[in-house]
């Protein structure tokens, strides 16, 4: 461990001479390429997939990339995207919730009934729907923790039971129209950010990255740890900020960024922080990776499962409320059909593993954009929903194949 001829003392984590360490900007690029080569793809496949899908649909119908269509796309993304965010939570701990579609449908029916038929204040009706969602998830967690009921079965039962409740409270009429002009419906259909707000918001991610990046560099240097390349950080921040501003500028040519999409992205960012930077998130990942190890480390495994299931149903209920706002109605069809599978597929396509312990909140965002792009593109081509189902299914299959190939490559390169 003696280092001679080195004027600067070696960083604490660079003392092992056997490990190659990349430094500087070229090093950062090199590390990234190495990571991809060894199968640690991150969100690269979904971004490549998105580029392919967009190229194909644009060549078939140029309207696809028009800013007005993209704004509509963002409106549509937000509802199922919020549900997919909940799915990420349960997938992180290696469980599944098949009833998110039913829960979202019931939540929209509950809001419709309480608000329109019973005359409750709209905020109270929404709150009731969210509380109901969290309760359903807590029930699944109770069945799982206390009775050892597999989540696959309990949520499958929940799918039917909650769907039944939805049909029951909607009664014989089968559909409740939400009043146009109300704040909720406007939020789901019309409200977009003023231009200056969207431009300002687009700067924030880069700014936050820059501040946390510089603070971390300073702290690591003070702690005698190696520091990441500052040039790489600045380059990343510049790329992200310019990219976001260009996207915002393009979308502002038409209506602009929907507030509903802003809410969705805000939730994604919050969940990402919670999953990566808090003890709770670390515990979620640990429980998904090795439940017994987590238990022996003193983590309250049952509480973690409870939080995952409750959050998932809560997000499902919120997604249902947003869907009701988007459609201005609460009907028997709400939450049925492909909502369930689109939400699960979005999380998986975005890169969250079905086997637990691996994933990120951003996978919900990326995945739902892929799925909605396919839906929107096929609608523009005037193709039937039969084709849409087949193509979405094929994309899901490809995503899972890419995931398992990448996992095999990671295993042979000695990465988890």
């Amino acid at each position: 461990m003696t280092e001679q001829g080195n004027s600067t003392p070696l960083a604490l984590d660079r003392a092992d001479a056997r490990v190659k360490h990349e430094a500087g900007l070229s090093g950062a690029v090199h590390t990234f390429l190495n990571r991809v080569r060894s199968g640690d793809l991150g969100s690269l496949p979904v971004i490549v997939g998105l580029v392919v899908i967009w190229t194909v649909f644009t060549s078939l119908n140029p309207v696809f990339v028009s800013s007005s269509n993209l704004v509509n796309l963002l409106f549509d993304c937000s509802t199922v995207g919020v549900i997919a965010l909940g799915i990420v939570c349960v997938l992180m701990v290696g469980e599944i919730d098949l009833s998110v579609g039913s829960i979202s449908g019931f939540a929209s029916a509950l809001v419709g009934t309480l608000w329109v038929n019973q005359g409750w204040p709209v905020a109270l009706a929404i709150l009731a729907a969210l509380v109901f969602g969290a309760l359903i998830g807590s029930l699944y967690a109770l069945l799982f923790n206390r009775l050892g009921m597999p989540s696959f079965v309990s949520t499958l039962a929940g799918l039917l039971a909650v769907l039944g409740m939805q049909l029951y409270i909607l009664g014989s009429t089968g559909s409740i129209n939400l009043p146009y002009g109300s704040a909720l419906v406007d939020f789901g259909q019309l409200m977009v950010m003023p231009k200056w707000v969207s431009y300002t918001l687009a700067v924030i991610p880069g700014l936050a990255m820059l501040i946390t990046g510089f603070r971390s560099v300073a702290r690591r240097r003070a702690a005698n740890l190696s520091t990441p390349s500052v040039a790489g950080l600045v380059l990343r921040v510049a790329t992200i900020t310019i990219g976001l501003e260009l996207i915002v500028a393009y979308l502002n040519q038409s209506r602009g960024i929907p507030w509903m999409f802003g809410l969705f992205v805000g939730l994604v960012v919050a969940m990402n922080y919670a999953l990566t930077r808090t003890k709770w998130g670390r515990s979620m990942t640990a429980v998904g990776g090795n439940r017994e190890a987590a238990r022996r480390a003193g983590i309250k495994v049952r509480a973690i499962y409870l939080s995952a299931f409750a959050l998932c149903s809560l997000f499902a209920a919120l997604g249902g409320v947003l869907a009701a706002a988007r459609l201005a109605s609460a009907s028997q069809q709400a939450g049925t059909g492909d909502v369930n599978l689109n939400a699960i597929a979005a999380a998986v396509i975005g890169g969250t593993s079905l086997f637990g312990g691996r994933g990120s909140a951003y996978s919900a965002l990326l995945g739902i954009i892929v799925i909605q792009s396919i839906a929107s593109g096929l609608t523009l081509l005037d193709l039937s929903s039969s084709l849409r189902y087949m193509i979405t299914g094929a994309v899901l299959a490809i995503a899972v194949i890419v995931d398992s190939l990448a996992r095999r490559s990671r295993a042979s390169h000695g990465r988890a």
Partner: protein
Amino acid sequence: MSESPQMSASVGELVLSLRGISKNFGAVSALTDIDFDVHAGEVVALVGDNGAGKSTLVKILAGVHQPSSGTINFRGRPVTLPDPRAALTLGIATVFQDLALCENLDVVANIFLGNELSPLRLDEVAMEMRAWTLLNELSARIPSVREAVASLSGGQRQTVAIARSLLLEPKLILLDEPTAALGVAQTAEVLNLIDRVRARGLGVVMISHNMEDVRAVADRIVVLRLGRNNGVFEPDASNQDLVSAITGASNNAVSRRVERLRMERDQSAQAGEPRP
């Protein structure tokens, strides 16, 4: 067979002292009247056949099982260990045979799992620094603490597991079969590690089936047989003595071989040939 429990010169204060520990699972007595001492700065090897009660004893010390009778004295005070948390907070750390690491998390996350610094805004820098300090104290050979544990070799994982057990600054560390699944080089690495843990002044209890490893690091060898104390040995005790204490039979492959060699020697001596 020497039976005195205090035969080795005690290295430090008495960390752990068990008197008359028994454990029954229904009608089965897994442990009967066990006495067991560990001093600071001492490696005690716990050996015995399958079903001798080694793991039961370790589980009692880890707070997983509770003894049916007997007393546990830890650093001079009588204690009870109702659950694993209690053992940890007292200062008894356990490295289980299956290590219990999360392969999808990196080394830092594994070392701090359940004890993260600043729960609402994880202090990655402080945690990484502490992890390196721990690993360097053990002269551990870990290339990067930001790699997932899945990419580490068996010996490196054992190192991470031991480093994790040292995080809460325990007084006593229990190792259940630390070398069972390791190759030659990795075994040597882990044995070195045990040496260094002893040098830090901790009491170490090590379960092992491998007499070579036991002899290499242990200061005392405690033999259990069918849930009872069956002798305490110096590390230079003969293999024959150890094996017969473990199996309880004076007639086994090792003793027969010793007997055969002695017979041959006697015969050649009787034949009057000069011994080389």
